[in-house]
């Protein structure tokens, strides 16, 4: 039996599975554009690190987003940019903070779902804000704060917030239904 902890075997596997899922979704949506879903639902997969963060804790969420983004970037074009990876990691870390202020027995109740949607929005703003403004601060590709806001931050944060706030509670609810009756699968 695994001990509960940040680096227990089940957390490590959760990190790896979250990473692989996030990367697989990004790649899949890149390669295979579903008819009618292009462009607007830019990255519905942002819900994956948020879901993993919310259910398995902040560290698992961070690693899923961070590594998942590195791997999907490496697959889809070949390289990666570290600050966007950290930004994606924050997308998973912030919903994970629910771990500390929502009792574990109520994360699958209405209060939990609302908190999870709110945290998804906060995560999208903070995560993409981090990525966009570090681009500006360190001068990766852009050199003015207006560009960081209008060309990077707003489009990324708004789409991620909408995707995350809608899809994450759906995923959490589906997970809650699936684990009902299974011992220790929380």
């Amino acid at each position: 039996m695994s001990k509960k902890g940040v680096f227990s075997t089940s957390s490590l596997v959760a990190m790896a599975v979250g990473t692989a899922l996030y990367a697989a979704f990004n790649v899949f949506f890149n390669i295979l554009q579903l008819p009618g879903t292009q462009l607007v639902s830019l990255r519905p997969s942002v819900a994956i690190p948020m879901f993993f963060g919310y259910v398995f804790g902040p560290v698992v969420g961070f690693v899923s987003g961070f590594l998942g983004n590195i791997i999907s970037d490496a697959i889809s074009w070949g390289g990666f940019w570290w600050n966007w990876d950290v930004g994606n990691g924050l997308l998973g870390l912030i919903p994970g903070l629910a771990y500390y202020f929502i009792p574990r027995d109520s994360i699958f109740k209405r209060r939990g779902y609302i908190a999870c949607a709110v945290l998804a929005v906060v995560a999208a703003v903070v995560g993409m804000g981090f990525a966009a403004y570090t681009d500006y601060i360190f001068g990766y590709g852009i050199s003015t704060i207006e560009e960081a806001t209008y060309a990077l931050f707003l489009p990324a944060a708004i789409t991620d917030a909408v995707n995350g706030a809608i899809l994450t509670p759906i995923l959490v609810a589906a997970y809650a239904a699936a684990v009902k009756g299974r011992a220790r699968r929380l």
Partner: protein
Amino acid sequence: MSTRFIRYIEGESVIHRLDPRSKLTFVFFMVLCLTLAYKLLLVIPLFAISVIYYAMAKLPWNKTKNTWKFILIIVLVLSLLNYFTVALVYGQGSLLEKLTSPRAIASAITPVLKLLSLALVTATLVFTTPPNLYAPALGQMGFPYKAAYVIQLALRYVPEFTAELGRTLEAQMARGFRPRGGKNPLARLLAIVPLVVPVTISASLSIYDIADAMELRGFGEERCHTWYRELRLSRGDKLLLAVSYSLGLLYVALFLSKLA
């Protein structure tokens, strides 16, 4: 299996033969230097180094075409965006003066060169390193083996889940699912729920099974862990490490002297 997904290109160049540990160190110091480089004059040598590094890898054009297409689009969009905002919003004088002032041109080029150097260095790392060496490399660089194992495991599952997504989509389509959605962005988003939910949930339910299987085989019992592939530093690796460390020191010193 993951070799098919991660864009590793087989080759015999000097860069291909380098130890992944020295390549990772080089990427780390390049990122550090690019972060600390505060003016165009300091970015140009780094850009030159990354171009030389990329060229030494002798990557075939037909396999890197997509990467270049992606990079060029980004560079073109960002450089024009930069150039016009810097020149028109912050510039002084007549329109022509605004557009041709050396300050506007320099501050438009610097960030794009930084971005391009980062892209070149990381792309060379990805293209020339077999994916199965990342975990052993990190493990032998002193990272905790559990962290390295997460990478190994993630790389192992990416192709699995991609295939699973394809299978689920086909299964759903056989049951009459057509992702449509029309013009409403919300409806489009909800249209992918039947695809995203089953794959995510079945994957997250399998976590405990995988963890149990690993623990039954003794994972996590020992404090240390050995790697099947033992890496050795060659002369080229030592040279690259020396270059990385000296570049790092130089740029830190330059940055500190500017602060002082």
